[in-house]
């Protein structure tokens, strides 16, 4: 036992420990065995590789954007190129990274195991959704190779339908296909959660990670098709030349906005909810305590999913919508902020009377809590009608959603990847290096995006290639922060890759966590459980774990 007073990390004796010979990675050999697999764990691995690839492409675009904004003059790239950069950054990051990030990787890997099932309900559909993702990604890259697209990821009509001659239709197809990938993932999760729970796994014994994914999946299934039809209508309008979004022919561009944001607002909850699920697991494990107010956290996920469908018009407050309906949507926006506050406080109080250690996943989780608090509260600025007038379409909104999406989601993603890395690969990552990466990421992130709040209130518009010189100091700070942030994101890739071969053997349950996934071997067998388990305790029941461990020691002794 290597657990000390400052760590719960409990690795087996490295001299004798080995990775189990039989596991899902060694089960079959050859590329085809991966490309045609039905195993949710292998598909999760495929996803991890592909979303990391797209993350770094999107990140490279972000780097170029920040580099251009180092000086007020439009000097690094041409305006067209700049517009393509931020469009591609947005499309890749939103549709090819953030939406599938936690659900398709960690969710895919863990949900069946957490429920005590052998696989997702529809393994072939799961594989199909990865292929759809790859096709969507390839189409995006095709559009990029052919010369890019400069609509902005929001595809504002009539700009995208009648005033641009870039590859809008190709990109629209890419998003359509990637959208179906996300629909199938969500569908698979919902069916699995309803139908595949092991005996004794009641709804209120499920880990909060599963609850969060359930809520996110409902949003994926119900929201994404509306985006699909909006994007199809845009493509048709470009092909036919007439359509329902063209004001000169009697169409209404705001209709597009309504349909687009009907999905794209819930989409931000699709992105953040799974991250919240990760945080629940991590905070509980590293404070050795049941999550404070389990039911409140579970229901707040469901509440976010439900209210999430009633607030989309807050993206259009200044776009000429009816002021009366703006009132209604603003009020509902205030309501959707409450469940997030509930979650934050419940996580904070989970620490109370715990026995807290500060391993890397926990550091990322702390980072998440701080940054998400800022991101969430600045969201209230934007939901407030009057304030929205000054702040929308400026760098304030850029900073706000990066705080939620990058500060929140990416922190949660990295937290989860570190947390479950020993389970997925059987090997530990290097602890001190990863702590350094967590700290670097946190500092870099704040340096990048805090100045943008100030810039936003000053009025610097988003998507600007050139800007007045008095904004330069803050932009330089932001670019400097982005450099640090870039290092913070490169580090994990390097040391995680290193750990695949050289990391210490992790054993079954290095964190002494309670989840079902920690009670099986790492990496797991293809069928997860030799026998379907029986859930006879609540989630996060550390007393049960203690009892079980003591029993095992006795049995072995």
């Amino acid at each position, binding site marked *: 036992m290597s657990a000390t*007073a400052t*760590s719960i990390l409990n690795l087996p004796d490295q001299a004798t420990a080995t990775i189990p010979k039989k596991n899902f990675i060694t089960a079959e050999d050859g590329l085809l065995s991966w490309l045609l697999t039905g195993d949710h764990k292998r598909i999760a691995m495929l996803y991890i590789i592909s979303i990391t690839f797209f993350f770094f492409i999107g990140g490279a675009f972000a780097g170029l954007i920040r580099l251009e904004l180092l000086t007020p003059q439009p000097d690094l790239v041409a*305006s067209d190129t700049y*517009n393509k950069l931020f469009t591609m950054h947005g499309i890749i990051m939103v549709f090819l990274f953030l939406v599938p990030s936690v659900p398709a990787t960690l969710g895919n890997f863990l949900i069946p195991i957490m429920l005590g099932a052998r696989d997702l309900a529809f393994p072939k559909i799961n594989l199909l959704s990865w292929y759809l993702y790859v096709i969507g990604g390839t189409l995006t890259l095709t559009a990029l190779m052919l010369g890019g697209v400069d609509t902005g990821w929001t595809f*504002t009509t*009539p*700009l995208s339908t009648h005033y*641009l001659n870039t590859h809008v239709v190709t990109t629209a197809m890419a998003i359509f296909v990637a959208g179906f990938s996300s629909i199938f993932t969500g569908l698979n999760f919902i069916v699995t959660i309803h139908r595949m729970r092991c005996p004794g796994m009641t709804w209120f014994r499920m880990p909060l990670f599963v609850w969060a994914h359930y809520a996110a999946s409902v949003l994926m299934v119900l929201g994404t098709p509306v985006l699909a039809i909006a994007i199809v209508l845009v493509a048709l309008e470009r092909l036919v030349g007439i359509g329902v979004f063209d*004001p*000169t022919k009697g169409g209404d561009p705001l209709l597009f906005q309504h349909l687009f944001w009907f999905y794209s607002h819930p989409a931000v909850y699709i992105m953040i909810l799974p991250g919240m699920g990760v945080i629940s697991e991590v905070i509980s494990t590293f*404070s050795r*305590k049941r999550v404070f*107010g389990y039911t*409140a956290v579970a229901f707040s996920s469901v509440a976010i999913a439900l209210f999430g469908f009633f607030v989309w018009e807050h993206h259009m*407050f*200044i776009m*000429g919508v009816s*002021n009366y309906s703006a*009132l209604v949507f*603003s009020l509902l926006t*205030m*309501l959707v*902020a*409450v469940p997030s506050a*509930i979650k934050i*406080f*419940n996580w*904070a*109080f989970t*620490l*109370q*009377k*715990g*026995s*807290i*250690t500060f391993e890397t996943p926990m550091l990322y989780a*702390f980072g998440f809590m*701080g940054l998400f*608090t800022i991101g969430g*509260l600045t969201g209230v600025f934007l*939901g*407030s*009608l*009057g304030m929205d*007038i*000054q702040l*929308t*379409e*400026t760098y304030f909104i850029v900073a706000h959603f990066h705080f939620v999406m990058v500060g929140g989601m990416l922190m949660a993603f990295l937290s989860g990847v570190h947390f479950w890395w020993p389970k997925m690969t059987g090997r530990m990552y290097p602890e001190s290096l990863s702590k350094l990466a967590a700290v670097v990421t946190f500092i870099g992130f704040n340096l990048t995006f805090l100045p943008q709040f100030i810039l936003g*209130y000053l*009025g610097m*518009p988003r*998507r*600007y*290639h*050139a800007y*007045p010189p008095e*904004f330069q*100091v*803050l932009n330089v700070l932001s670019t400097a922060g982005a450099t640090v942030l870039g290092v913070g994101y490169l580090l994990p890739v390097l040391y995680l890759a290193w750990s695949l071969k050289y990391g210490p053997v992790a054993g079954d349950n290095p964190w002494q966590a309670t989840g079902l996934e920690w009670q099986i071997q790492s990496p797991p067998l293809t069928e997860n459980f030799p026998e379907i388990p029986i859930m006879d305790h609540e989630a996060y029941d550390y007393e049960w774990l203690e009892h079980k461990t003591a029993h095992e020691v006795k049995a072995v002794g």
Partner: protein
Amino acid sequence: MGISPVIWQFLVKWLTASALFPREGSTIAPWMDELYFFLLAMTVVGLVLVGAILFTFSVRYRKSVHPVATQIEGSTLLEATWTIIPLAIFLITFVWGAVLYFRIYNPPVNSMNIYIVGKQWMWKAEHPGGQHEINALHVPVGQNIQLTMISQDVFHSFSIPEFRIKREVIPGRYSTVWFNATTPGEYHLFCTQYCGTNHSAMIGTITAMSPADYKKWTEDSTSGMSLAQNGERLFASMGCNACHSGTAAARGPSLAGVYGSKLTLTNGSQVLVNDAYLRDAILNPSQHVTSGYAPIMPTYQGQISEDGLIDLVEYLKGLNTNYRVQQTLTTSQSDQTAPTTPGVVKP
């Protein structure tokens, strides 16, 4: 080791010229800033609260001090607390924000009206006196100014951060915003809605000047014709006066004094005649036939620019009597024929 004086000078200049907080240039700005500071305080308090809780618990219950965790289920009282208190704060924010929104988007009745036309990638401002400006707007301080804005192509957004106003400029529809500048000076004008290649070049300067200076400026930059005069000329050249002549035998309704009145249409509905209605009635006349008249007016879609429409609207706003209409009609009939009804509109 000393720093090079050139670099030092550059740094000082760079830092002193940089801004951290926008100037308050209009009467709306202080209202907006009050709400902003309230929200900022809320964020800081929230962040400090969460930070303090995390920090305290992390120190007190770290493993070396507190090796065995005590299991706690939860607390309904605490849950209620952190549901109700944030909700209350958010609701205050909602009401406050809503009040501000209605202030900014409800122009006072006695405002001076300036028209803005947005197009890729420039702003065109049209003063009632006929002064046209590109990417610039001169306004007097201390006067309520209403902007009536429209876009010729895509969505744009008219933003003056130092006045704390912003409004989307929409194709095919007037949108309005108003302000009352307090301090003379120059302010940034931005297009904040992404509108294509040169989006970031669609900027301009707002010059707020004292009323006397403004008067001088209007006299210096007059083009000789006011918007209404341009409109009157259009009214005659497009043949509007042939039907809207105000005589008993006229085929169209008299337009004198029509602005601001309530009209009854053929379908029985009542409408208030405002800028948007007039514009719409010129482009889609068959949808706006005044009760008692035949739907014979041709459409002017595609035959008149947004600027022309603004001229016409401005002309009709000030039209109190049909005397000049009839005078123009009699003098122009000899040499000018009204355009015939356009036939089938082929796309």
